[in-house]
């Protein structure tokens, strides 16, 4: 066993096929007790089996694996081992210590363990149920109603929030895609508060609908508070406005 006298930044070992240590770097000696000059004496029993299993194939030249070593500091030290077989069947190993990088993870895990111990699962399950109800409520707040083969109505209910518009968008786009609708009316009469984020998402939905139908989307029953928020967005002429559903339908059927 010889000392490999180059200032390598990681512990380095060179082994023969039997696992005898031929060369070791300075850091390798600092990390491990190398009195017995075989790798077996510094690798944890179970990891040794893993090493044997994965290093025995000399054809695979480059190998990488996690192994537990008995270091001078602790009998269970995790290292990432990078290994290459050379032409004379010597294994060259660089060992990257891993315990430091896993430390944060272990601490987080302990914190989660604590948190779980104090979790009230009754509350947790009620919350989950509530979330499902809320999603269902959102789905029902923007029903897609076909009026004729070419015309459909989406009345919106309640406050305009990002989550609600997101959920409504999914079902609405699906329905428009599967039918052949040209005129889409969106009725704001039953809308309460309007969130800017929600309106942002709504304008996006309008533009998509406009692209899909090729016609302007008719917006009905805009109140002053909604108009103020809507005015912040560039609408690129993808929509037109009307006072009431009654007016729109009156004009539509008279034309027909």
């Amino acid at each position, binding site marked *: 066993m010889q000392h490999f006298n180059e200032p390598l930044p990681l512990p380095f070992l060179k082994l023969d096929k039997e696992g005898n240590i031929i060369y070791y770097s300075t850091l390798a000696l600092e990390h491990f007790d190398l009195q017995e000059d075989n790798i077996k004496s510094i690798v944890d*029993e*179970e990891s040794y*089996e*893993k090493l044997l*299993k*994965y290093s025995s194939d000399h054809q695979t030249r480059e190998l990488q*694996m*996690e192994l537990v070593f008995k270091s001078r500091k602790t*009998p*269970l030290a*995790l290292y990432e081992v990078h290994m290459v077989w050379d032409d004379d069947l010597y294994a060259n190993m660089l060992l990257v210590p*891993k315990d430091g990088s*896993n430390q944060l*993870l*272990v601490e987080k*895990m*302990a914190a*989660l*363990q604590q948190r*779980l*111990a104090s*979790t009230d*699962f*009754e509350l*947790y*399950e009620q919350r989950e149920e509530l979330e499902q109800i809320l999603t269902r409520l959102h789905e029902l707040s923007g029903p897609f109603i076909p009026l004729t083969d070419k015309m459909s109505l989406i009345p919106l209910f309640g406050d305009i929030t990002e989550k609600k518009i997101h959920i409504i968008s999914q079902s609405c786009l699906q329905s428009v895609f599967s039918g052949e609708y040209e005129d889409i009316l969106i009725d704001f009469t039953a809308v309460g508060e309007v969130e800017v984020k929600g309106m942002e998402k709504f304008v996006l939905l309008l533009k998509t609908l406009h692209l899909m139908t090729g016609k302007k989307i008719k917006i009905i029953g805009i109140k002053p508070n909604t108009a103020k928020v809507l005015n912040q967005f560039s609408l690129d002429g993808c929509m037109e406005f009307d006072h009431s559903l009654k007016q729109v339908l009156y004009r539509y059927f008279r034309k027909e």
Partner: protein
Amino acid sequence: MSFPKELAGYLLEGNTAKAWKAIEQQKELSLLDTYHEIITPAMQHVGFLWENNEISVADEHLATVTCDFIISRLAHARLGKEKQHSRRAMFLCLEGEQHYIGLKMVNSLFKENGWETKYFGSDLPVEFVVKSAEAWNPEVIGLSVSIVYHLPKLNEYITELGKLPKPPVIIVGGRLSEHYDLRPYCSENTIILKDLIEMRDWLKNEQTTSKQDAAF
């Protein structure tokens, strides 16, 4: 793909929703069978994947925490309202020992059988165990050890707990009990249980004996 392997996949993804759904599909299984036939093999498979150089220790940590969530939620779903307790048991891992999933399952099984339990989880120093045992007086103390290097400490725990005025019954379990002879590290009265099935049998036997005692 087998069911435990499927579950192992969800645990490694940290996907609590899918893992829980998978467990829910097997509602007809008893708590013990869910532990023994699904969760234990799933976690063993996670260990196997590390030995097989397919995942890292960091992945294992994620699977453990996710599994912990599933076990906690399962206990809540199955154990329901607290029962009338008559007997006390305490559970902990030896100092430095981080493998606590098996112990947590054993804790729930005792609860299911009407025991009042204290569960301390991983890494509990011997002084603390002795202090708590003195104050709380459990009939049974369950110790879990999974790493060979921690074995010498087992002896220390057992000796110290044996000195208590009312020495509790010590049960030792964990991965090692399947492959190693733990006797040399234990006292004469220590009970070594290899898996959850042995645990159930012991509990059953224990409960019948105590009922008989009460009848006399």
